[in-house]
């Protein structure tokens, strides 16, 4: 979300997420927090 990963790193992350459902959930929640935070910022200036 914040940085470009190398191909190797990306593969390792994918593999880990494939076996870790808690991590998948965490990643989804982090994305959800980002989207909602940006929505709050967008609304504030309207």
């Amino acid at each position: 979300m914040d940085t470009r990963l190398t191909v190797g790193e990306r593969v390792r992350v994918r593999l880990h997420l494939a076996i870790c459902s808690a991590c998948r959930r965490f990643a989804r929640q982090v994305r959800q927090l980002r989207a909602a935070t940006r929505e709050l910022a967008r609304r504030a200036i309207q």
Partner: protein
Amino acid sequence: MSQSRLSHPATLTAEDLPAFRPALLRYARLQIRETAVAEDLVQNTLVAALQSLGSFRGEAAPATWLIGILKRQIIDHYRRMSRETPLSAAGPGDAAENEADLLDRLFARDGHWATPPVAWTDPEGSLRQEEFLAVLEACLKGLAGQAGRVFALREIMELEPDDICKDLGLSKSNYWVLMHRARLRLRQCVERSWVVERS
């Protein structure tokens, strides 16, 4: 404030400026906990805008232009705060024990999840979405210290990590630790009000 004023770049006069104060204040309050500080920053923004009205060319909407000035004010404020509270020192509400507590509850010694995250109810539907945003807004106010600043710079002001590191004088790894800490805290806070109420 009318939509048209925001979406139609045109001329901007000194008399127009006060109408933008509420929006600027809402934006500042998302990332500045102390009301008085937020008000000061908005005031400085309006003064700076007044002094540089001549440079407003209408390429951007007035609100966008003003938010740009406000962002600069907030970044400078963060930079001052960041110098006052070095990474090692815990800021208010930033107690080191809470931190250790949080990590202990979430992760076991071997690095596995001790308390795996539970699925959040999807904030589908506009009413649920509103509730979710209200919970999040309250939780954002609780994000203190350097972690809160890093989160705001990245997620509210949408700065690039490299620029955030420069602004706050952080190493790349400091940045990651702070960002992760902010996300864990925020996530936990949201979960407390969001899932628990609904499960």
